[in-house]
């Protein structure tokens, strides 16, 4: 029974499903209860599952993650919400020193299946600290998994997979796509395992790699390029850690060219890893260098400038053109 859902509602449905299936799943965060979260992603869940399972916490992100670790040690499967990307840095120590390392620190004896949900990225005209793209920090951190849905179907399944995973997962929600809609069949099995990338559009001349909010932009760019006669393949990474390098490499071996796009600063951003790995794996196949397009190495600007900061269709196509020009 498929239903048209926004990304926000699809994640809500995924959370609901997880709460139903496993009594050890608890949600914690700021304003997630009666308010249902500032983006309404947890809407209705406290009403239906009670204040014991959907917990409004004090305003202290470090302790939100720390307490989740403690609950996980007690056998729970906490899902915590960080209200906005820019507020996760307060919890960075608990995430990096504790959550990521607990399994290794305990020689594998302690599992901390905590999911850290974070709305991330720009494009909604917000005030500062509300448009950050912190994914590289987490992807670089051994011990964490990092996934990000680009559409409602993935939102529904990935969040359940993240919660079911015995490792800690940073679950990044592209906030400017919360209102994107798609048919979601809640009875269908997940189309892919959590760690897999997916070719979301087939093409011949170049592989465009993206994730989260930039997938739609890249699909639009590919469509525009097609009308100009250029056939572009688009890969949605879905998982940043682990990176599904095979899917990317197979695509680039076919197309011979690669562009990677994201909102974060390209300097040491996720695209650096993809570019470095693809350049190595496809050394003999690449007809042009892997090019990167993304945010600049500047703090996220005031929202009136975000149109310039964020890689849009034009900047993506400009980069594609430069790659094709080699």
């Amino acid at each position, binding site marked *: 029974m498929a239903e048209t859902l926004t990304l926000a509602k699809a994640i809500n449905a995924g959370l609901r499903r997880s709460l139903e299936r496993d009594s050890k799943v608890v949600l914690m965060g*700021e*304003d997630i*209860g*009666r*308010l*249902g979260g*500032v983006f309404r992603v947890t809407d209705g869940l406290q009403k239906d599952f009670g204040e014991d399972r959907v917990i*409004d*916490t*004090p*305003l*202290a992100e*470090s*302790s939100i993650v720390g307490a989740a670790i403690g609950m996980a040690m007690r056998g729970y499967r906490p899902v915590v919400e960080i209200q906005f990307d*820019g*507020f996760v*840095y*307060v919890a960075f120590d608990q995430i990096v020193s504790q959550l990521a390392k607990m399994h290794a620190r305990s020689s594998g004896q302690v599992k901390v299946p905590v999911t850290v949900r974070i709305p991330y990225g720009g494009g909604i*005209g*917000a*005030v*500062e*600290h*509300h448009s950050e793209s912190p994914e590289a920090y987490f992807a670089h951190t051994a011990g964490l998994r990092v996934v990000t849905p680009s559409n409602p179907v993935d939102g529904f399944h990935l969040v359940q997979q993240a919660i079911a995973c015995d490792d800690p997962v940073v679950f990044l929600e592209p906030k400017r796509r919360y209102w994107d809609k798609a048919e979601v069949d809640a009875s269908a099995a997940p189309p892919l395992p959590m760690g897999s990338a997916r070719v979301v559009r087939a093409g011949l001349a170049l592989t465009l790699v993206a994730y989260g909010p930039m997938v739609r932009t890249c699909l639009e760019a590919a469509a525009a390029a097609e009308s100009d006669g250029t056939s572009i393949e688009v890969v949605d990474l879905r998982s940043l850690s682990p990176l599904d390098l095979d899917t990317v490499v197979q695509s680039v071996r076919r197309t011979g060219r690669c562009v990677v796009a994201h909102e974060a600063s390209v*300097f040491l951003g996720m695209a650096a890893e993809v570019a470095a790995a693809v350049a190595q794996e496809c050394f003999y196949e690449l007809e042009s260098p892997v090019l990167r397009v993304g945010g*600049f*190495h*500047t*703090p996220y*600007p*005031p*929202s*009136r*400038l*975000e149109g*310039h*900061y964020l890689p849009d269709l034009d*900047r993506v196509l*400009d980069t594609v053109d430069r790659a094709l020009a080699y």
Partner: protein
Amino acid sequence: MAIPTHAPDDGFVQLLTPEGERVDNPDFPLDISDDEIRALYRDLVLVRRIDAEATALQRQGELGLWAQLLGQEAAQVGAGRALVPGDMAFPTYREHGVAWCRGVDPLTLLGLFRGTTNGGWDPEEHGFALYTIVIGDQCPQAVGYAMGLQHDRAENAVMVFFGDGASSQGDVNESFIWASVFNAPVVFFCQNNQWAISEPLERQTRIPLFQRAWGFGFPGVRIDGNDVLACLAVSRHMLQRAREGAGPALIEAFTYRMGAHTTSDDPTRYRLDSDVEAWRLRDPLERVRSYLHKQQLVDQSFFTELDDEAEQLAERLRAGTRALPNPLPTDMFDQAYAEPHAVVDRQRAEFSQYLSGFAPEEV
């Protein structure tokens, strides 16, 4: 343990009742002229007008967001007017009333919410630091600034603002420790407006917030945050104490957020109209107005002129907001670092070249 939301059981410092009667408090005497009270009333009215106008501008799509101060005017004006030149205020994102007292043009604030800038004033010039959105981050900075004052042997103090929700952040509590250990000249001014977005005070504490100070070894006092005279008197007292080397203090201004958290918020989802109504009876402006009336300190023309002034201010904000210059695309490169940075320089050059491929009107 239930937290009283209207008037706290264990009292607070009040110098002007909701009915507009002066009451004395032996600990916090206030020596104030009629002129000063009139000036405070003017502040209250103009600050409320700025807030209302900004809210309207947001509704009209001119601002992306606005964080209303409605209901908290007295707390902010009382605190703001207790500061003297050379003092430094560290605000959150809601201290438009303090900004006003510190001489920051409200238009500059509107730029933040319009997205033309993240902070357009010079903190040193105004003694008013940048707005801080990451809850609590300003507190250790305020203590550091106060330590700087100490080093300079300056006879000034710092006042740092934060909310009831913020009181749960690690940084805020660390700053209590630092202030205490270094005996830094800093006054913590907590506007307890009963809500942190949708979370009531019980999510942050089970005892009155001013008592937090007891755990750190400096005085804490709760004041009627809707009473501008109490806010002024206690702020002055604590600031002066700090300037004289007696160290930090915590002031809890007991007040209420009459509006939504921000214009993006829908408070009907989590709180009762009747609570809001009850607090309306404790309006921070009404009681001063009624005092001025009863004491015959003003005539009708005072109010009319003030209304006019407010209207002109609003007019200026309306026009000014629409005219706020958009930043230049190159600003982000120019402002990222104080000195040249090779990565940014390269990106600036590439981006400028990229932009030059477009017709001017597309940029």
